[in-house]
């Protein structure tokens, strides 16, 4: 029997598995593995960096403007001589565009999802899914152009005879809704397609027709995925910038009617960022205070969504 270190059976009790994992230390591999892990850890680093980047100028901002004035003030005029820093006008602007957007996107997105998942023939689905993908791939600045130069003047003013100006939260919100339709539709469709066929068969066997089966069986079974899709649409609506920057207007005011001109949080950030604002100035810090608020709001929305999905998820 050979006695070299690498040949022949090693000394081990009969029946146990050979230890093949600790042959030789491969430092190159360790280094590569460290690199891979480091890349993954970088994503956590990005989140920390976002928080630091937003909080640092915000601290300077709140040294000059009190917290309660920022959150409860009703006049937003950060660059005026008699400056006011009440963020409520921006929040109402965001609420309006988001509300109008979801009013469009939720029913239409869910309708498209139900049709694609429960009704459409394979051939029809093969045509419609790419249409939704194209709709999802159109840059938001193009949607903004469409809102400003088609929806507001042609659709709302000429065709529907509404009293809208060049800028309105209505035009921005409507187009925002169109932009979010694919988000709601494709995630909801995934959720409904994942409902097992046996549930539908059971429903048909009990004499329910297709509509009843869809609404009473498939829809409730897929509700966690559908909720997730709506919440993702909501957080996209809150964070969307280019459409509202182009079409919603630049007058920060408490918006009382959808035809009104109103600035959103993201619209303010976009408008101020394109102007002159040197780092360290109050204007620059204001930008980051609003950005921090936006980040916190979307974070809360996402956390709520995650907990809803966890609580009502049905596992098949």
């Amino acid at each position, binding site marked *: 029997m050979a006695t070299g270190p690498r040949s022949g059976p090693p000394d081990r009790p009969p029946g146990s598995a050979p230890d093949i994992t600790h042959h030789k230390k491969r430092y190159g*591999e360790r280094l590569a*593995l460290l*690199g*891979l*892990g480091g*890349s*993954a*850890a970088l994503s*956590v680093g*990005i989140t920390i960096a*976002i928080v*630091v*980047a937003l909080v640092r*100028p915000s601290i300077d901002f709140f040294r000059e403007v009190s917290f309660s004035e920022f959150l409860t003030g009703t006049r937003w005029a950060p660059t005026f001589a008699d400056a006011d820093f009440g963020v409520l006008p921006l929040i109402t602007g965001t609420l309006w565009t988001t509300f109008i957007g979801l009013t469009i996107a939720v*029913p*239409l997105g869910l309708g*498209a999802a139900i*049709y*694609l998942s429960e*009704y459409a*023939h394979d051939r029809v689905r093969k045509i419609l899914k790419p*249409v*939704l*993908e194209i709709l999802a*791939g*159109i840059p*938001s*600045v*193009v949607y903004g*152009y*469409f809102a*400003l*130069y*088609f929806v507001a003047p042609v659709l709302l003013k000429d065709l529907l005879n509404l009293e809208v100006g060049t800028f309105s939260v209505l035009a921005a919100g409507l187009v925002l809704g*169109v932009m979010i339709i*694919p988000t709601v*539709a494709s995630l909801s469709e995934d959720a409904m397609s994942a409902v097992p*066929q046996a549930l539908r*068969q059971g429903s*048909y066997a009990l004499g329910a*027709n*297709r*509509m009843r089966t869809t609404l009473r069986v498939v829809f409730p079974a897929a509700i966690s995925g559908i909720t997730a899709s709506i919440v*993702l649409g909501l*957080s996209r609506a809150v*964070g*969307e*910038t*280019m459409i509202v920057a182009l079409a919603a207007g630049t007058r920060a005011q408490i918006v009382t009617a959808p035809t009104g001109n109103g600035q959103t949080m*993201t619209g303010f*950030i*976009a408008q101020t*960022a*394109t102007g*002159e604002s040197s*780092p360290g100035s109050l204007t620059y810090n204001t930008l980051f205070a609003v950005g921090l608020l*936006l*980040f916190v709001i*979307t*974070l809360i929305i996402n956390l709520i969504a995650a907990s809803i999905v966890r609580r009502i998820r049905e596992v098949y």
Partner: protein
Amino acid sequence: MATIGSLAGQPMRAERYGDRSFGSIAFLIALWAAVGFAVLTLGVLLVDSMLDGAVRLDGALFTRYSSQILPETAGARAAILGSAWVIAVTATLAIPLGVAAGVYLEEFADPKRWYNKLIEVNLTNLAAVPAIVYGMLTAGLALSIGLERRVVLAGGIALALLILPVIIIATRESVRAVPQEIRDGSLALGATPLQTVWRQTLPSAVPGIATGAILALSRALGEAAPLLLLGGLVFVNYDPDGLFSGFTTLPIQIFNWASQPQLAFQQVASAAIIVMLILLLMMNALAIFIRNRYQKRW
């Protein structure tokens, strides 16, 4: 069983299942309306941009710089070159990092460890952070490392941060789709786990990763919001010539033109929109081609 299963998946004859009732038909019409609305909007949007921009789809659009005083002959030369530079930087940064992170999470990370769980939760949150926040992050980063905000490198970093989660998710999905037997075979032949990933798993996953990466880059190409935070990107009338050169991009230029009240600016904006949409369509077609041509079905 198979016949029942496939029957239920097929559209069934309506009258047998009571699908002819008034409510059912109204419901189906509502669904058609929802789908029709999406298709119609896409059509109107495309036709509207075409009609507005057709008059300015000329040579000047590609060869001339933007102009504040002469919108009739303003061009998107600087914006097209700037977009190319920024997307190149974005790809160089985001693809290697995203693929490395995706491979780690799928092949090496123990999902029970708290730090790997943290990375998972963090990724889903990052994917939902508004795009404009990545611009603020980049502006803050640039300030603290002393980099000029309005250069190509800063723009590339901003867009790379934006699409990193997308690339990580695409990588994970394609790596997960590689069958376990391939890994087992490689390990049984004596390859180390890393050699297995490098020589077997990753090559099999390349088509999926490439598709995901191209789609992510096409999103970066159309994104303007994060770049707005880098400040003053619209008055560029020179070709960008390096990482530390000033730049503008197509969506930024379109945003600037669309914000001007004159009709001539509106026309050149929609001409630039047509160019951008054609570029995006080409990237998407390439992604679909790669998916259909090279993706392995196991």
